[in-house]
């Protein structure tokens, strides 16, 4: 049980997928202008990532096996793309407002490297099924947390007297960097 807790804390804070592993920067920069959009993006990613972690574990464990190891990345991409498509259709049907907010970013979850990265890390770390699920969920939770915090800061930064050339993405990048610096404070917390 503590093992699971450590994996969760580890993925959410210590080895945060965005702040420490520097994965998934595309939606991190793209969908963090508005708080609501960031929350929705986080929720959608959490859904996809948890599902993808579980599915990819099953595929890797039972379908591929050691002799088809070289198909790992390929098959993961296909599965993730499928799950994202599925999510998109569900969201569009069940919550048009959310669909509107997420806009073009929903399909972009497919190309979110964090979503591919986490299943691959799972394989690398030789996690079992439960561990893979929690690792995926924790990673997505960490992603959501950082997205929401970042969006809050960006909304506030809109009113700041940022020098002309740093307006927009540039200052957002700087902020992301300083946030990453802050998250380094967690290093060493979970070995």
């Amino acid at each position: 049980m503590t093992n699971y807790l450590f994996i969760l804390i580890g993925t959410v804070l210590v080895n945060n997928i965005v702040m420490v592993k520097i994965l998934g920067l595309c939606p991190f920069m793209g969908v963090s202008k508005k708080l609501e959009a960031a929350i929705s993006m986080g929720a959608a990613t959490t859904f996809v990532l948890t599902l993808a972690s579980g599915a990819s574990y099953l595929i890797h464990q039972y379908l591929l096996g050691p002799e088809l190891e070289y198909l790992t990345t390929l098959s993961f991409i296909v599965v993730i793309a499928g799950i994202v498509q599925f999510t998109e259709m569900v969201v569009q049907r069940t919550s048009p407002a959310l669909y509107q907010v997420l806009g073009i970013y929903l399909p972009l979850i497919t190309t979110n490297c964090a979503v591919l990265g986490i299943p691959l890390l799972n394989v690398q770390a030789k996690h079992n099924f439960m561990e893979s699920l929690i690792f995926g969920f924790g990673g997505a939770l960490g992603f959501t947390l950082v997205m929401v915090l970042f969006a809050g800061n960006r909304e506030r930064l809109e009113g700041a007297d940022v020098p002309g050339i740093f307006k927009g993405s540039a200052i957002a990048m700087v902020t992301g960097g300083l946030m990453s610096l802050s998250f380094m404070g967690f290093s060493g917390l979970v070995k």
Partner: protein
Amino acid sequence: MRTLYQFHGGVHPPTNKTQSTRTPIAPAPLPGKLVIPFHQHVGNMARPLVKAGNRVLKGQLIGMPEDGVSSAVHASTSGTISAIGMAVVAHASGLPDLCATLIPDGQEEWVTHEGMAYRTAAGADVRLALRLAGVVGLGGAVFPSDLKLRSGKHKIKSLVLNGAECEPYITCDDMLMRERAAEIIRGAEIMRFMLDAEEVLIGIEDNKPEAIAAMQLAAAASDDKMEVIVVPTIYPSGGAKQLMRILTGIEIAAGVRSTEKGMQCFNVATALSIYRALQFGEPLLSRIVTVTGNVRNAQNFEVLIGAPVNELVALADPLPDTNLYIMGGPMMGVPLPSAQVSVVKATNCIIAASDKLFPPPPPALPCIRCTRCAEACPADLQPQELFWFAQSKNFGKAQEYSLFDCIECGACSYVCPSHIPLVQYYRFAKSEIRALEHEQAAADLARERYEFRQSRIERDKQEKAEKLAQKEMTALAARQSAATPEAAADNSAQLRIQAAVEHAREQAAAARPKNIDTLTPRQQAEIAEIEARRAKAREMAHPDAGQPKE
């Protein structure tokens, strides 16, 4: 002892009131010219009833209240109207507005007037009398008083009389209460009667002991349940909502009427003018104005509405380094665009300002979020957030943070260590939001009209097509049914003639000018002239049309 409540925040600026309370209220002499704006109150502008050259009597109605929220405007003295036109008025914009210029004849000849028995008259009649007497709130809001004297469906428990006068420098209500307490109490009795209120609470700040004593004496003589309540000196205790909170503990949110909570609040000077209007039939022609600041003899004057500010200030002997006049107090007042503007019903105080009296603030620095403003805000707002959104023009967020609950009291600007003109930002954001809302309403209306037009055009097209189809059908039927070609030709010719007649009739109806039955000869002449001009225009537009062809 009554329990008093507190409102959040508030500030203690130096009061500077003693300068202008040393001498009693003095009547200001008749000025050489009065400029009376037709829009002195909240709501619609009054409609002018006089023309240039008319002689008017003192108290004569010259501006008729328009529909809804509006109030009357009167000639403040007898004389001749020399002009009706645009003139710069006492407004922060410095823009001109419609005014009547009145040259006094010095006779002070009153129009016939008499009081009314308000206790026996119908409530609506009493309110109409007040509306026609131009009685508006004299505390600065200038909201027509008659509209506030309807108890409506809510039971009014407390009538609050506002004598707090918390703004620094201003003493007009203080002096009025000292000298005319009895009349104010009479006015309060009238209002209590009209609202059927249980009690009258008169709130006065504890820095006006003479006024408190006078009012207590007068209130004791009244048969109504009246209580003079001494409230601690803190700005802005004179804000209607803040005073009601202090006296009753009840807070009235923005957009909520105080009557819903069983209260109504009036300024003491308004009570006096209500009394004068109903007891003697005297409309609101003058008010008490404090003239203070950078002057040698600060004093309160009874001034006719429309008197020019420079003539008024001259009575108090302003010092030579005066470079600005402020209408109102130093916290909420507005700088006057010119010294030539006239005193209006909202003018409670004129402060002569100089750089020495009110030193220009040091440069404004960015907000450091120290939250002194939030601690001082009597409306429990977060001024630093409002400022952040207003300065970045993020109006949606500003509204989310309750921008419109701001009463613009200036307590935040007063305490700001960065010297940011905060209220200024809120006023800017508020007027922008109002304009945007107005634009949105206009866009909605335009969309509606556009869609209606589209559907009408569509319908017309369809009807035309149907008619055409029908015509063809009948024609076809006629052709088929007609035994002889002659009959058929007859038929179609008949149809054609009928259509032509109808068309002509239609055209005639369309071209005939309307409303010509009851025209005066002059109007008829005008129409003829227009027709001639039109013919000429037609000629100009089609030069070859009228010319004989060669």
